[in-house]
């Protein structure tokens, strides 16, 4: 473990490299049975973070975590259970996906000014055993909402896993 390669910030200039068509659409936007998971990334002053990147990993609706390629070329591929969303100028991220059978989205957060990745989870509303503060809210139009606060009074709970 002492030989682990350290992380570094994603910096400001990643979009042209890491964003790709359909990156945040694990299923096509508006598809039957799909749901939008979205939110805003904020800094410690409550300001939006327009240069963050959020990735999610999840099971399918039946609770199976897919082990299939095709995330980078979504057309014609099945459900891969992985997606990426770069925040826009308002700090907004969004995914079109399905509600996972295993009751949370595993989440990684990157940003300019953030020197290493952060891990957290987003639980479905009503999930049993959810970590306090990490439950998405259901909006009137059915979308799932979860804001990420890098710092401040509403700071998101971030994780440390064994062996990391």
């Amino acid at each position, binding site marked *: 473990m002492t030989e682990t390669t350290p992380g*570094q910030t994603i910096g400001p200039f990643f979009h042209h490299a890491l964003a790709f068509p359909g990156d945040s659409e694990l299923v096509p936007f508006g598809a039957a049975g799909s749901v939008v998971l979205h939110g805003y990334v904020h800094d410690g002053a409550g300001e939006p973070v327009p240069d963050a990147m959020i990735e999610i*990993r999840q099971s399918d609706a039946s609770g199976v975590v897919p082990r299939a390629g095709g995330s980078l070329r979504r057309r014609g591929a099945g459900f891969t259970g992985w997606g990426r969303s770069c925040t826009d100028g308002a700090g907004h991220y969004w995914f079109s996906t399905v509600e996972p059978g295993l009751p949370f989205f*595993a989440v990684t957060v990157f940003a300019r000014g953030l020197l290493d990745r952060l891990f957290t989870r987003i639980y479905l509303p009503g999930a049993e055993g959810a970590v306090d503060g990490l439950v998405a809210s259901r909006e009137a139009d059915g979308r799932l909402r979860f804001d990420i606060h890098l710092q401040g009074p509403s700071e998101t709970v971030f994780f440390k896993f064994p062996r990391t």
Partner: protein
Amino acid sequence: MTSSQQEISEEIAKIQADSPRGAPLLDFAPYRSTTLRHPTKEPRHVDPEGAELLAPVFGNSDVAAVEADLTVQRGGEPIGERIRVQGRVLDGDGRPVRRQLVEIWQANAAGRYSHQGDQHPAPLDPNFTGVGRCLTDDDGWYSFTSIKPGPYPWRNHHNAWRPAHIHFSLFGTDFTQRLITQMYFPGDQLLALDPIAQSITDPAALARLIASYDHSRSEHEWLLGYRWDIVLTGSHATYLEPSDD
């Protein structure tokens, strides 16, 4: 209120006099943009479960072989010093990470990104996007052909320059092994001045971000070769806690 390099270097030295750490400090004021973007609470210790135990999978339908050569993506030859960077991606137990995605991005030889947010008045190179992808092979090897990136100025403090670097994005076999980092070049005098690199306060750990020049990878009258291996954190799926009995 813009600090001088000397002020930044003194701040770095003061922090580094404390306990050296192998992972970057998230609360690292010499990199000014960290101020409002680092969590202040201790992370919560959790055991990975479900989707956290499985990294996303990528395959030949995701990546074309040509994406590993950043010198042939446009009509002509990019300007600069042609290089090849090769190495292995290993997990925390020394096992190769096989058939997994590696993504890179970098500035051109003049220190300019082909990103609309980059305002550095250095020339863009119409033959260079600075973006590459590949899959590791069955022994965990990746290989990119590119152009040596130039250093570039940034606005962290007065006369601030980033050392030449290539951004790397990596996946392991577990979701928890996700890594984004930067590879540096040997002998770069800017490394010691750079608050992003120096946020890794253990010099031995920072050294793991520096590629080595490898003459055996250079090609006669063609390019210079570098070797850089990447070690991810340990995986959980195959890890058994040592038992007490």
